[in-house]
């Protein structure tokens, strides 16, 4: 047990494999003769073991599969961009700066002309299309256009 104060701070580094060869030798030598530090190290190992088990708890392949389905959906926008952009780029004639600029400006002008035509009339911020409820329901709008659906629940 002699010299525990010197070795206790090194135990975590020992467990984590962050000590130098000399430090490892010194700690191991001390551990041979010190039940208190052995117990300390054992507790640190147990903590690691139960933490690992707890984090893996309930993790099943099926759940991760579900997540992958969603991830694939999340990746859709870039692939769509690729799908649209790459074939279009391949169809374009070789890059000519002036011609590209001219086409670009012409397209922009067309877009600026089209946008006001296709923009629809402003619609309310929220439109409630349907409601099904066990309890009576009232729907109303505040002065600033805030839509509220109110449920008249009898009991909690």
């Amino acid at each position, binding site marked *: 047990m002699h010299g525990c104060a010197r070795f206790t701070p090194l135990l975590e580094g020992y467990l984590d494999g962050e000590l130098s060869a000399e430090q490892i030798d010194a700690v191991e030598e001390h551990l041979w003769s010190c039940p208190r530090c052995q117990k300390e190290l054992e507790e640190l190992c147990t903590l690691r073991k139960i933490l690992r088990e707890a984090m893996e708890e309930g993790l099943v392949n099926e759940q991760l599969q579900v997540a992958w389905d*969603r991830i694939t*959906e999340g990746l859709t926008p870039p692939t769509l961009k690729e799908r649209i952009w790459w074939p279009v780029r391949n169809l374009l004639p070789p890059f000519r700066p002036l011609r590209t600029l001219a086409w670009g400006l012409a*397209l922009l002008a067309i*877009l600026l002309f089209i946008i006001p035509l296709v923009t629809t009339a402003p619609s309310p911020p*929220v439109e409630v299309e349907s409601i*099904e409820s066990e309890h009576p329901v009232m729907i109303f709008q505040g*002065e600033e256009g*805030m839509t509220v659906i109110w*449920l008249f629940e009898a009991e*909690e």
Partner: protein
Amino acid sequence: MKKLAFFALVGLFSLLPYPLLAHGEEVKIGVRVVLASHKGSGVDNGLQDIQRKLNDLFNYSSYRLLQERSFFLTQGQVKQLPLTKGRDLRLKLLRERKGSVEIIVKILREGKEIFKTKAKLKKGGVFLIGGPKHKGGVLVLAISAQGA
């Protein structure tokens, strides 16, 4: 200049096959669960943006923010959140199109659907569902949608 042509083309495409492009886009849904009651007074800091609207619409003296969640949904995706003991909120993103979002909101009690609504929100829009009784007051859910 190549970039300019690229943006012009993308702009044009975004006008033509809109439903195709819209599919798969993420929408950020925000849910705030508020307890409105006559116990005490004041509005929690997290509700400042809708404080005036709450005061105009209802006459409760206290608005306490119980829970705030925001998450991303893509078309067809469902998210369920616990509201209070025994009550859950389920949201489904039906579609996202031309700056607006169609969602289905359900309230479940002990797993049974007690309320369902289908609503179309403009991105940035908020709507409220209120009335379920809770701890001497009522719950008000503020649901909002924004583009990703």
